[in-house]
């Protein structure tokens, strides 16, 4: 009886393996080499002539990181490198570390990681480095000597301050009640924006008054929506909301729209242009600020490629960017790259 069990299970496994053939493509969006590297055991990615660059987002499957992924894949095609774009299914540092460990096993040439938690990935990145792998971080800095280059879409401080400026612009006044709605209490970059924004507001706009501690919405639009409704009621004089993380602004805007408070409450935040369009239209969302996600992904790969080719990064060097060549903005430390100021999307 038990023998049967074992057999059936192996069968079940094989089946699921078969399923993988169809299934695997999504996470490694369109990057054939990476996709089939599993099944036909093409030994190590490195052996197959072209370099392999692994780009790991905080998590796969949210619009923001899907777009960065597309950028990265684009770069892969243009620059003739294999790009593996894969990450955990939820923003869990533990999962991410495991996957990096597996990437080391896959002997990739470079790992570009957007860490869920900077400190958490340092040990594994050190392992990677020991294995002779080029280490980059992007989206969120690791802040450790282990990384060879650090790609910043923008300086967190600047962005946090920028959002506050946007809010003041939207409100048309620099005094009144406002609130922060954030994706999660434990997201480092969101917290960085919040802290920077608050510090900035205190000094520059002393009359802005934060009504309550930042409200968490666990990266869910629906939660942002209900919490905003609560906010609106709890604080009748609320004039503005700064929404951090990509789903949050949409949720807030939805609440504002539903209550018809477009005129009264201004919402600004970090959102992907495509999704925010409709809310920008009816003014429930005053402005969405974000960098061009695709470019970020592209730039990251492009820099990794340059370094793998053994070139040294220099400030102002010419580099292939998503839309033609760009000049590299390198900070004095020789490894921090700033992509440029954010793009603000407003009602067209």
């Amino acid at each position: 009886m038990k023998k049967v069990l074992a057999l059936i299970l192996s069968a079940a496994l094989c089946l699921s393996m078969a399923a993988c053939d169809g299934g695997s493509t999504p996470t490694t969006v369109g990057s054939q080499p990476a996709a089939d590297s599993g099944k036909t055991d093409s030994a190590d990615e490195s052996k197959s002539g072209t370099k392999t660059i692994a780009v790991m987002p905080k998590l796969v499957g949210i619009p923001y990181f899907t777009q960065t992924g597309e950028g990265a894949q684009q770069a892969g095609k243009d620059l003739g490198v294999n790009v593996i774009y894969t990450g955990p299914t939820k923003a869990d540092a533990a999962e991410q570390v495991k996957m990096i460990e597996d990437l080391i096993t896959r002997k990739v040439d470079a790992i570009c990681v957007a860490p869920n938690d900077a400190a958490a990935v340092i040990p594994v990145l050190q392992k990677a480095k020991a294995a002779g792998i080029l280490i980059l971080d992007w989206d969120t800095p690791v802040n450790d000597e282990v990384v060879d280059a650090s790609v910043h879409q923008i300086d967190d401080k600047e962005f946090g301050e920028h959002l506050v400026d946007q809010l003041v612009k939207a409100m048309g006044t620099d005094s009144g009640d406002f609130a922060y709605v954030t994706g999660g209490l434990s997201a480092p970059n969101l917290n960085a924006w919040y802290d920077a924004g608050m510090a900035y507001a205190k000094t520059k706009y002393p009359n802005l008054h934060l009504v309550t501690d930042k409200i968490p919405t666990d990266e869910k639009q629906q939660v942002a929506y209900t919490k905003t409704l609560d906010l609106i009621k709890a604080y009748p004089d609320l004039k503005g909301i700064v929404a951090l993380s990509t789903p949050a602004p949409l949720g807030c805007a939805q609440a504002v729209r539903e209550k018809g408070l477009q005129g009264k409450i201004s919402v600004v935040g970090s959102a992907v242009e495509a999704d925010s369009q409709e809310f920008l239209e009816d003014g429930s969302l005053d402005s969405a600020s974000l960098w061009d996600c695709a470019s970020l992904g592209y730039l990251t790969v492009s820099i990794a490629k340059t370094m793998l080719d053994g070139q040294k990064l220099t400030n102002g060097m010419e580099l292939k960017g998503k839309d033609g060549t760009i000049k590299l903005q390198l900070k004095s430390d020789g490894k921090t790259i700033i992509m440029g100021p954010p793009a603000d999307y407003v009602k067209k």
Partner: protein
Amino acid sequence: MKKLLRKKEFSIFLIIVFISIVITVASPTFLRPDNLIDVLKGNVVLGIMALGMLPVLISGGIDLSVTGTIALSAVLCGKLMVTYGSNIWMVFLLAILIGAGIGFLDGIIIAKLRIPPIVTTLGMQSVFVGIVLLYTNGDWITNLPPWFKQFGTFTVGVLPNGSGGTLGIPVQIVFLIAAGLITWFVLKYTLIGRGIYAIGGSRSSALRVGYNIDRIQVFIYMYCGVMAGIAGVLHTSIVQQVDPNTFTGMELNVIVAVVIGGASTVGGSGTVFGTFLGVILMAVLENGMVLARIPTFWQKIVMGIIIVIATSFDVINHKREQNKLVRVDIEE
């Protein structure tokens, strides 16, 4: 009156009243009809899933796979609308079919293979959640057809909102009420519904009386599935896009709500009214936390404490009653 006091629902009703008072003191807006409507609307999904979970718990089972069901329903319905336009009827039909299908699988495995419900549904959950994310790669489904968005914001009737104007009842709430009535009817008036209570009360007696236990079990899980399926559509109608990742961990909230509402985890007891109270308690807590201006970082702690206390409270009451039983009538 005494009978009322003995009712399980009553203790939680008291807790709700108490908390509501606290909140209202902190923020009078709490009792404004528009707030209450918002609170309700925000918890329609939880409520409908709870109504589906209720019969499962009454029968002494449990269903962790609802998360997979609601996710699959939301995603497939979303795709259906985006790709084929389709219409509201097709959407709900699809949702119901999905729910019924998954529920049927659960039920068959539990009834025929005799795998404990918690294990079966745990496995099913990871399978279907996996399938959903595999299919969507977690990507959102946006720009749903306008007719669906209109459906989402559709309201019926008019109530005075605290501040002079009027407001209508969102269609989602209508669904919640309908689901409540249906569940109530099924549980109270159908033979199968009574069978659910019978199984939960005493499986052996239920057999002796002649209930077809397997059939009833399959029905229970299908019913739960269908409710989760419908919840999926309603969730989409509120949020107006589909985020496949948004449902993770939902099953536990649903179970807590139902059990707080007086359904026992060993089966046999539980009412629609109680479940409503359970959902409302959870909703009021969520909503009140912000209104009552409880610091963000204390909200979860308060939540946890209330859950533990509420459940202990009930158990202790029950024990006290048991001790009163007389075994032998003593000769005087």
